């Protein structure tokens, strides 16, 4: 069976072009009918039609005139002539695929119908969660808790420029609502190998921070590992930063290498009470630098292996300056039916001329989906010295979390999670620092309803 590359006239690209094509054919038929000598029509169908050279010349001239007239009409209507050529020459193209030289439409020229490819419109997707949390720490009460309401807003300004933001409404332990622009980025994509972004971003330290951002919807568990807790919830990493980012692919074939390079203000260090993210003013002229490299090998779909190095200098008001280096390495396998996340971090704080403190931490998380149910297990560990100059309250935190995620529908999930956390500095587990009760208690149970809209 021959492949028909050209559909009948009725299947031409647009209504206007098809009607024009039909008009043209009709005109040609009328012309032929009017010009052909009566003797030609009078002949029997079985007889050979003989047309003399002069008549043929006349016909061709007439066709030329009509084509010129049609072109004038097309020009007046703003229709490119190529549309007609494409649909009016089916025989020439029927046996072979159309090539770029045949009836090529002018990409930048006038189009039969305006079709916006990249309108500057806001696209909004929402994520939210609601939970019931309780723990066995003295003074803690089982509570219903509103989680974060996250509006992820994007706008394609043109085919290379994009705006995105994560507008998050959240409630802290003082029960007051707070709204934060957790991410605000203007992105310009040169090509697959270079994209520049400017604004507030999630630091590309390791995997977790840029894989889940500010929603529990994509997370299997009810919350983030303590290692990646947000700054305003007692977290120990500079989760947010304000600055510029370059990212893209590295030509590497099936290895799928990518890079990220970030220069930002870094975290606040002058006072623990100050806003941890330097959104508007940097307290010093030194900038933080983060470089990440990762691979997504084609041979193992869903896998990602990478590392990152973050470097900054902190200037506490009551101490000498501290060199900060954060090393992260990870290997993850994330598929729709199976997930295994492994990530380790080493935070090195080096006060000028004083003892160097190294804080190791890791988490491992495994889950497998059985229909709508996805049981999971996570084990995490962070061990900071009691004399750690930047986060002395953290100490040791280690223990497992076990739970199950039930996908009630495409848009709603229910998670039940039990956490057991050994903590060396229990007195430092301050309720004021906790948003989710599960993070405050050595042993806690949480039920979380997550949704997207």
């Amino acid at each position: 069976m021959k492949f028909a590359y050209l559909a009948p006239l009725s299947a031409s690209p647009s209504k206007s072009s098809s009607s024009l094509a039909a008009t043209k054919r009709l005109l040609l038929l009328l012309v032929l009918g009017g010009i052909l000598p009566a003797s030609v029509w009078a002949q029997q169908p079985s007889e050979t039609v003989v047309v003399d050279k002069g008549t043929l010349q006349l016909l061709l001239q007439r066709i030329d005139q009509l084509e010129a007239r049609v072109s004038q009409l097309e020009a007046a209507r703003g229709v490119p002539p190529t549309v007609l050529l494409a649909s009016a020459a089916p025989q020439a193209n029927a046996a072979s695929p159309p090539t770029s030289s045949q009836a090529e439409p002018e990409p930048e020229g006038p189009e039969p119908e305006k079709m916006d490819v990249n309108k500057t419109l806001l696209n909004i997707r929402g994520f939210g969660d609601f939970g019931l949390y309780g723990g066995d720490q003295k003074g803690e009460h089982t509570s219903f808790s509103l989680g974060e309401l996250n509006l992820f807003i994007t706008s394609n300004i043109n085919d290379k420029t994009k705006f995105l933001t994560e507008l998050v409404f959240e409630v802290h332990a003082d029960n007051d609502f707070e709204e934060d622009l957790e991410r605000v980025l203007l992105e310009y994509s040169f090509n697959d190998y270079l994209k520049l972004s400017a604004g507030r971003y999630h630091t590309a330290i390791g995997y977790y921070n840029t894989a889940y951002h500010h929603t529990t919807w994509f997370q299997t568990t009810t919350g983030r590992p303590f290692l990646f807790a947000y700054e305003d919830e007692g977290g120990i990493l500079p989760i947010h930063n304000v600055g510029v980012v370059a990212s893209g692919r590295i030509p590497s074939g099936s290895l799928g290498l990518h890079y990220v390079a970030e220069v930002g203000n870094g975290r606040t260090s002058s006072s623990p009470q100050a806003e941890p993210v330097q959104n508007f003013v940097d307290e010093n002229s030194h900038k933080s630098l983060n470089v990440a490299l990762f691979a997504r090998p084609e041979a193992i779909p869903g896998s990602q292996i990478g590392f990152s190095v973050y470097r900054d200098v902190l200037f506490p008001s009551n101490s000498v300056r501290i060199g900060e280096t954060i090393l992260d390495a990870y290997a993850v396998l994330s598929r729709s039916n199976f997930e295994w996340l492994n990530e380790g971090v080493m935070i090195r704080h080096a006060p000028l001329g004083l003892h160097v403190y190294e804080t190791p931490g890791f988490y491992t998380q495994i889950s497998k989906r059985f229909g709508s149910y996805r049981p999971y297990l996570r084990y995490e560990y962070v061990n900071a010295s009691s004399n750690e100059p930047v986060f002395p309250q953290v100490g040791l935190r280690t223990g497992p979390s076990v739970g199950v995620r039930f996908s009630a529908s495409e848009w709603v999930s229910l998670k039940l999670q039990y956490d057991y956390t050994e903590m060396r500095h229990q007195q430092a587990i301050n309720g004021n620092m906790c948003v989710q009760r599960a993070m405050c208690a050595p042993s806690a149970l949480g039920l979380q309803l997550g949704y997207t809209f």
Partner: protein
Amino acid sequence: MRATVRIRLVWLAIALFLELPPPYAAQAARSKPGQSLAIVVNRANPVENLSLSELRKIFLVERSHWPNGRRIVVAMMDDGQPERQTVLRQIYRMNEDGYRDYFIKGMFREDIFVAPKTLASPIVMRKFVFNAPGAIGYLRSSEVDASVKVLRIDGHLPDDKDYSLQIDEQPVK
């Protein structure tokens, strides 16, 4: 045999009474088993041939620019159409849920700059590919016309014996 005839007559009576279309009529009108799925691009696109692996990367938006520098705009047909199911199964290797999750996550994680455009019908697809210089989409081979350019996949055109993208009407699991 008689029972079958009776069932058909009953169905016809019900259908006439309720003004229902015959079962699967709409799909059957367009559904021609064994047809190839042509991958189509704008006529100005210089690309002539793609490997299936390259095609997968393009549809996954892992590769986002054509060799001429234009941004690739992937066009998908609406849910439930056999052409879309063929693309999901043979190119994406995902079902509808996996496809949706992939793009929502990808946009959220900033891995994906622009998600595929969803179009209602083959006619709209053809118009879109004709109008958008960076567009890539798909059509039944019988619905292709000269307004778009058909790509070779692994060196084969849709009417070739070894062409890999064949439309099937099986639902995606």
